């Protein structure tokens, strides 16, 4: 159900550089039917964000009011757990977004 530890380890070095960034929501959706890793988390929101350096990244959007979740709203990156893994698997952490207050 989870990623290989090696893939997690490699991704961490890339993800780390996305911390402390902010951007604008290009689009958003709320997922109700999810793959097994995220099934216990539905409904959850995923957004596509244009960061300040003009690159586009995806991330789950958390800790928001409904009014924060719209095209054009500003957001920033944070570190959170990514989905569920088995009881004996290495944990996954990832970049998610919260509203830029």
């Amino acid at each position: 159900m989870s990623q290989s530890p090696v893939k997690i380890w490699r991704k961490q070095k890339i993800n780390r550089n996305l911390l402390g960034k902010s951007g604008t929501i290009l689009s958003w959706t709320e997922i109700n039917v999810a793959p097994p890793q995220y099934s216990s988390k539905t409904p959850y929101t995923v957004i596509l964000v244009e960061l300040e350096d003009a690159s586009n990244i995806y991330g789950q959007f958390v800790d928001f009011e409904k009014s924060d979740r719209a095209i054009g709203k500003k957001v920033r990156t944070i570190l959170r757990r990514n989905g569920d893994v088995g009881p004996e698997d290495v944990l996954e952490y990832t970049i998610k977004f919260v509203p830029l207050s």
Partner: protein
Amino acid sequence: MFGIVDYGFYIPKYRIKIEEIANQWEKCADKVELSLKIVEKAVAGIDEDVLTMAYEAASPIIEVDTTLRQKIGAVFVGSETFQYAVKPTATSLAEWLDLSNDYLAYDTQFACKAATGALISALGMVKSGDIDSALVCATDKANARPKDILEYSAGSGANAWVLGSKNVIAEIVSWHSYSSDTPDFWRRAKAEYPSHAGRFTGAPAYFHHLGEAVKRLLKKTNSKPTDYSHVVFHMPNGSFPLKAAKQLGFSKEQMEVGYVVPTVGNSYSASALMGLVAVFEVARPGDHILFASYGSGAGSDAMQLKITKDIDAKRKQFKKSIAQKEYIDYGTYAKFMNLK
């Protein structure tokens, strides 16, 4: 001079009222609140854990002084709710903070005093000159058996402390640790929830160890209760620290600022230190602070701190920040705490 050069904290925005929990178990909410002196506690969200909270507490410190990345020679994390029994959270924290690889790391457990013990060890390493600076984090997403009395107090929170010798904002003047083998509260390696021995957690455990640590520190430093502007004791609930203060001769006024448990709950290893965060918001240069943590199993780390003139540049807003909150119901609380 050696001591704290900077610090950070993170308390999740979610709160559950003691009343909400009591109603769930058909207990009289008023009576529970009265005896525990807690109104509500902070709860970490569904995708937050001890690492993400420690990161939130520590990252602003690094952002303000990026040279710390090379200077930090030790990273210690204290918690009771590590996700791993084997695999340090300290190295994950260091990695996400993008520290150099030249540091000593370990995770520690000693119930609610897991981090303060590490703080004292880190102080020694800085004092000896072996390392320039140390990062010590306390972080817990404390859980409790549903319906157990601990469910009302077990909360979430984290704080981070950098120890060093330059621009110290709070000198750690002296410390004393008092320890013994006392099984008042514990969690077996593969158990999900902690267990406790009821009223045994009082006099022979909390009050004895904290009391002795404080008394022996006062003696060691040749000081008396009235010498201290602020006093912070570990807060397993709202009544124990006030009772200990009375027993040891400290006033309600001295306890007041650091007494944070009624509105944020007991964040276990981060609990007493959270009281220190509250004190740092208002403490003035020259103030002496008396601090004592308590860890079941059992032990207490008492410290005498002296605030310096450098505090003004580094103090953080605490009271206003914890006023930002969102209430959740018991069902949501259960969902948040069920992170696997």
